[in-house]
């Protein structure tokens, strides 16, 4: 049982890292629907780097770096060029999906390195993840930097008038957000499931995107949602733990996706929005053009 719980917590952290990256993006007003693509890149290049140097640190760093670069690319498209943010995000997702299939293919198979050591039964990523959630919550809601990010996401022209550099703030957020998504991918391929296979993520990035909508842009709620979905994902892989013999294993695999749709539906109802006052950043998805 402990093994199952530990595994669920590890899975949750991947959702947490990726979702936190997206949350920071969105708080500054930039929507990045390409999380899955960034994660695939971080996972694949991180895997190759770790495999060829036998060094986990390098693998993680490469994952973070490529995530940051792709975040910057999304920023360049959507902030500087003013391309529709959904189009740009889709582009990065399909680029990641297509290119990593080709790049990673020669490395198909297990990583075959000694596992990353655990502390009290959990990987260091768990503790880092919790710390990052708290830091992100603190920065976003208690510091002047957080105020700057939020005002840029709510009303960029007012923010600009009050002396903030909207584009610079957004670039900062998409880069940090991208690094977190790349790291999430690298944790997946280096620790959670250290085997490279084509398109292995199978929807983790898109569930992380849904979790951000569900979190009402609050890192603490995001953590809660991640814990729920991490457990759910683990359960869908091992249904025999709770309901042995009920439904086939393929039907169980659909469960996290069905519940994602259900969760999105609930939070989109008028009742939910009035009850909880979902704080969607006002300027989310709209490029800012200086007058």
């Amino acid at each position, binding site marked *: 049982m402990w093994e199952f719980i530990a595994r669920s917590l590890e899975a949750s952290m991947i959702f947490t890292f990726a979702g936190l990256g997206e949350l920071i993006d969105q708080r500054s007003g930039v929507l990045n629907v390409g999380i899955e693509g960034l994660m695939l890149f971080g996972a694949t290049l991180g895997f190759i780097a770790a495999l060829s140097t036998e060094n986990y640190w390098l693998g993680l760093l490469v994952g973070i770096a490529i995530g940051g670069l792709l975040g910057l690319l999304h920023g360049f498209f959507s902030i500087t060029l003013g391309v529709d943010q959904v189009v740009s995000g889709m582009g990065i997702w*399909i680029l990641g999906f297509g290119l990593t299939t080709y790049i990673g293919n020669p490395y198909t198979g297990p990583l075959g390195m000694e596992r990353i050591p655990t502390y009290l039964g959990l990987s260091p990523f768990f503790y880092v993840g919790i710390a990052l959630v708290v830091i992100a919550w603190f920065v976003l809601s208690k510091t002047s930097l957080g105020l700057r990010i939020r005002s840029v996401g709510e009303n960029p022209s007012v923010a600009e008038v009050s002396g903030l550099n909207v584009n610079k703030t957004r670039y900062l957020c998409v880069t940090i957000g991208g690094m977190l998504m790349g790291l999430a991918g690298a944790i997946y391929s280096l620790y959670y499931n250290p085997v490279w296979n084509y398109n292995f993520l199978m929807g983790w990035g898109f569930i992380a995107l849904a979790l951000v909508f569900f979190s009402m842009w609050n890192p603490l709620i995001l953590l809660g949602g991640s814990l729920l979905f991490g457990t759910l994902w683990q359960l869908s892989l091992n249904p025999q733990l709770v309901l042995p013999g009920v439904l086939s294993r393929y039907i169980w695999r659909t469960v996290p996706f069905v519940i994602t749709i259900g969760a999105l539906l609930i939070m989109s109802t008028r009742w939910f929005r009035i009850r909880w006052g979902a704080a969607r950043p006002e300027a989310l998805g709209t490029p800012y053009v200086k007058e």
Partner: protein
Amino acid sequence: MRVGNYELKLEKRLTLTNWEAAIISILAIIFALALFSFIFTLAKINPLLAYQEIFSYAFANPYGLPLTINRFIFLLLCTSAFIIPFRAGLWNIGMTGQLYAGALGTFAVLFAFGGNVPGSADLSPEILIPLMLVVAALGGAVLAAIAGFLKGKFNVNEIVVTMMLNFIAFWLVAQMIKEGGPFKAPGGEGQSFVVSPSVYAPLIMNVPFTIFLALGAAVLLSFLFARTKIGYQIKAHGHNPAAARYAGISTFKIPLLVFIMGGALAGLAGYHYFAAVPGVYKISSNYGYFGDLAFYGIICGLISLGDPLVAIPVTLLFGGLSVGGRFVQGKLHMGFGVDYALLGVLMIALVAFQFFYRYKIVRVSAGEERLDVGVHS
């Protein structure tokens, strides 16, 4: 930027003519192919030779050309499935799941008529083929309708929902064709039973009749957008849903309708690939590959700027590129996934070129006073 006596300036476009759009799209494709040469060069292959191989196999080879045409039919249906919601301002990235649903519908019809037992009584194609088409379209439409309904009724993000439905449909296919599933081939490994030869799709000069469905749908859609009230409403919803609502256009019915129409076409794409293409006639164990190909529909739809007639040559080109890409991968001993990488590079080049749909580079001679500067800011 100054070049000689002239100065290059970026200027916001006020209008985009069809010619300008076509030129931008062609430049984007050429740019992507140039970018992709790096991948060939890295694999120590002469890019020109590789492209020659790709195009000659895809469009001039007796084995390659039928593959290209079959893929063209499939991509055109998937692209139309993307375009209809796209014109209403909505993103259908669920063609993958919808075509799986169409395939499941097709095989459910065969199953219901005992087509899973080899050598069973001859099935009547006059009844079964139309029935398979209807149920395939219905399957895709029902799956897509979930996304359209949730978008229209509760404003649930359709990108996430269609993607979730892709994965749900993926596992449902596995459920039906893998161990213990009702559509499993007798004694076969993880694939469906084979379509009975008596209900093979009719071929016209070796091309499945589905080509007429795909082309007909594109023509009809073009007419729908240009001439009909419903087409106008879809476009109005795409420009500005809030304004459309004030104009009396239902922001519930339009999302539902465009997803149903799109899903039905994607369902037909599922019928086409799994029950009409010579040499396939089953849901193969690598059905995920066909689902991945559906993502070319997003690129084709974007490059065509949502015009179903423009999508015809675009999907023919992209169908050929994906077939040829897979071919050179084997012929030139490259790693798996050349066609996937091509998909990614084409997409990102297209995104970069989106910029030129809104801005143009103009050349003004230095020193010449421009009176209109600042007018269109």
